[in-house]
């Protein structure tokens, strides 16, 4: 299978299959289905490179991101999602959210 990420981020390829997700709905679902070890490893590997990834993506106009640049952006969005579990709640689920659901029904792409 060809890599999802450009060569600059080849070391993050092990996380790409799990976390290159185009919608918040998918990213939220993946977070809920992941354990803290998995998310902690992704967080530890990618957080230090967030700024570099943003700068990499920003070499292209936002509305014309090539596929291999859209993937790092999806990974950035996933890092934001995972940060909620790692930094804020220390568990995948939101504390006291019980069975409540809030669906993101419309969002900009990418």
């Amino acid at each position, binding site marked *: 299978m060809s890599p999802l990420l450009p060569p600059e981020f080849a070391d993050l390829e092990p996380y790409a299959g799990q976390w290159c997700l185009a919608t918040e709905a998918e990213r939220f679902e993946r977070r809920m289905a992941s354990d803290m070890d998995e998310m902690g490893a992704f967080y530890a590997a990618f*957080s230090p490179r967030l700024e570099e990834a943003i700068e990499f993506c920003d070499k292209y106009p936002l509305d014309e991101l090539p596929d291999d640049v859209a993937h790092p952006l999806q990974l950035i969005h996933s890092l*934001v999602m995972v*940060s909620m579990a790692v930094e804020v709640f220390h568990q995948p689920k939101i504390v*006291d959210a019980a069975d*409540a*659901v*809030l669906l*993101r*029904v*419309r969002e900009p792409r990418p």
Partner: protein
Amino acid sequence: MPRWPKPAEDSWTEHYPELGTGTISFGDSTSPEFYELERDAIFKKAWLNVGRVEDLPRKGSYFTKEIQIANASVVVVRGMDDEVRAFHNICRHRGNKLVWDEFPREESRGFCRQFTCKYHGWRYDLEGNCTFVQQEGEFFDLDKADYGLAPVHCDVWNGFVFVNLDREPSQSVREFLGPMITALDEYPFHEMSERYDFAADNNSNWKVFADAFQEYYHVPALHPQQTPVAVRKPDMGVECAHFQIDGPHRLTTTGGVRRWNLPQEYMYPVEIATRSGLLGPWDAPDIEPLPAGLNPGGVEPWGITNFQIFPNLEILIYGNWYLVYRYWPTSSNTHHFEAYLAFPPARNVRERVEHECAAVMFKEFALQDAGMLGGTQAALETGVVDEFPLNDQEILVRHFHKTVADWVGAA
């Protein structure tokens, strides 16, 4: 000791003596009979915000809105003349729901040149005129001019599309909104066209849910994670800088140091890394000048202003972006919740990530409200307790329930 000056009466609540200071009942949020009264007295009388003009980007754009409590389905459309109109979503021939996509009970949106009924193919133009009747000659003296779509009163204020299901609304939308809300005439909502829209079906009365978004007293207890644990203080209080009431509408303003101007330990690493978070992007350009109506209390430093527009609309303005909540009752103990965050369109990936971070953090804490309020509803429905004290920080809750009672009582 209060950090912010209170009115001469020593409290915001006593500044509005008609509110009283006694305990209140939440029977209005548990009783199926009261829900029935709200149908006619509120949701068939008040102007209701159903969307924005950005939801109708070009001629022929439409969306439908299910207003279950008013027993109405409404189609809102931008006509060939660019006018926004609303109609009851009912074919005049046999009463079929005219506009729907996959399921008739689900809302739909799109673009069309005309509406065609799925049942017998009658057609209507975007101004609501009946333009085609299949086998017209089979009917008896039928004049298409008599069979246009039933109109719904519709008006636009600063890009917000309102409908009114009353036969003859007693006020225009501007009169209804009044001076405190129309003081936002100059606020450039239209510039914030990048939207993150959310929807939920919640197990609570629409007012029980709205109550949680018109006071900040609950924030330290329910949302302690808004402050990183290292600097979290037990028994930390919250005080709003300003409250104001105008007719059925109300607002509150927060003040004080912006989150991102606090020492770094008061923010999460992801907020520092994205320069965004719970209160939105840090570096977004300021809107200058902000209309005076945004900060009627003259609070310095100004934080956010939370406009509660009767009956079921909230607009929270953070300066250079805003949030909208709408609460659509579906029974005495359920409602459909809509929310969106609106930003000026991102110009690059960095700004898109700022918006994403704000939208993600919004959902985290909104889910805490939604999760808990199902429990509030269930506990209220036991009926064991029916006298509840409200403090001065909860003045807007008090005013909301009084306004609902006044409208129901006046009907």
